[in-house]
């Protein structure tokens, strides 16, 4: 599952995207746990959201392997 990284998350992943091996149909919450296990620095940022196919997704949303997943650290545009 390809996961896009932006802002501070790019610095944590040391990449603009990572390819994570996951079971099919993982929830957003489970993905976060998995990522935080692999990248403990994620726990140190203010908060982050997960977007699935360009939409903010709640922790109980289910992600398919074909979805576009992005980690959204606190936004600071404007």
């Amino acid at each position, binding site marked *: 599952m390809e996961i*896009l990284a*932006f*802002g*501070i998350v790019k*610095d944590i992943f040391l990449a603009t995207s990572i390819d994570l091996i996951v079971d099919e149909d993982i929830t957003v919450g489970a993905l976060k746990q998995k990522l935080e296990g692999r990248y403990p620095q994620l726990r*140190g*940022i*203010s908060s982050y959201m997960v*977007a699935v196919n*360009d*939409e*903010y997704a709640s922790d109980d949303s289910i992600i398919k392997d074909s979805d576009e997943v*992005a980690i*959204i*650290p*606190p*936004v*600071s*545009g*404007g």
Partner: protein
Amino acid sequence: MNIDIKILKEPLDINVCINWVMTPQSGGIDVFVGTVRNHTKGKKVLRLEFEAYERMAMKEMDKIAREMLQRWPLHKIAMHHRVGILDVGEVPVVIAVSAAHRDAAFDACRYAIDTLKQTVPIWKKEIFEDGEVWVAAHP
């Protein structure tokens, strides 16, 4: 169409935004122009870098504009955001809103920038003399 959303690598053109929202029915236009400040929390800022998750940012800006049209009697909305490296004094964002009456334009424009800063996936890195930091990333 009465919504113009753009994410641009080139300097934003404020006049283009204003001229685009102006209609013969309009009595007032409110425009918000963001600018890069030379300091933050007492520290000198050399320049900023803006990064967008572009497709999603366009979608989220479009949501804001549609919400504005539902909540206020507006004519047209232009919302342009810049990405890339910006020097002090450059303009990261322009939001222009036209309406028959100015109250709606003011309220909607303010709603737009407040909401953009909360929901649109764009990130700002402040570059100082001694380092750089992604804004709001850490508690």
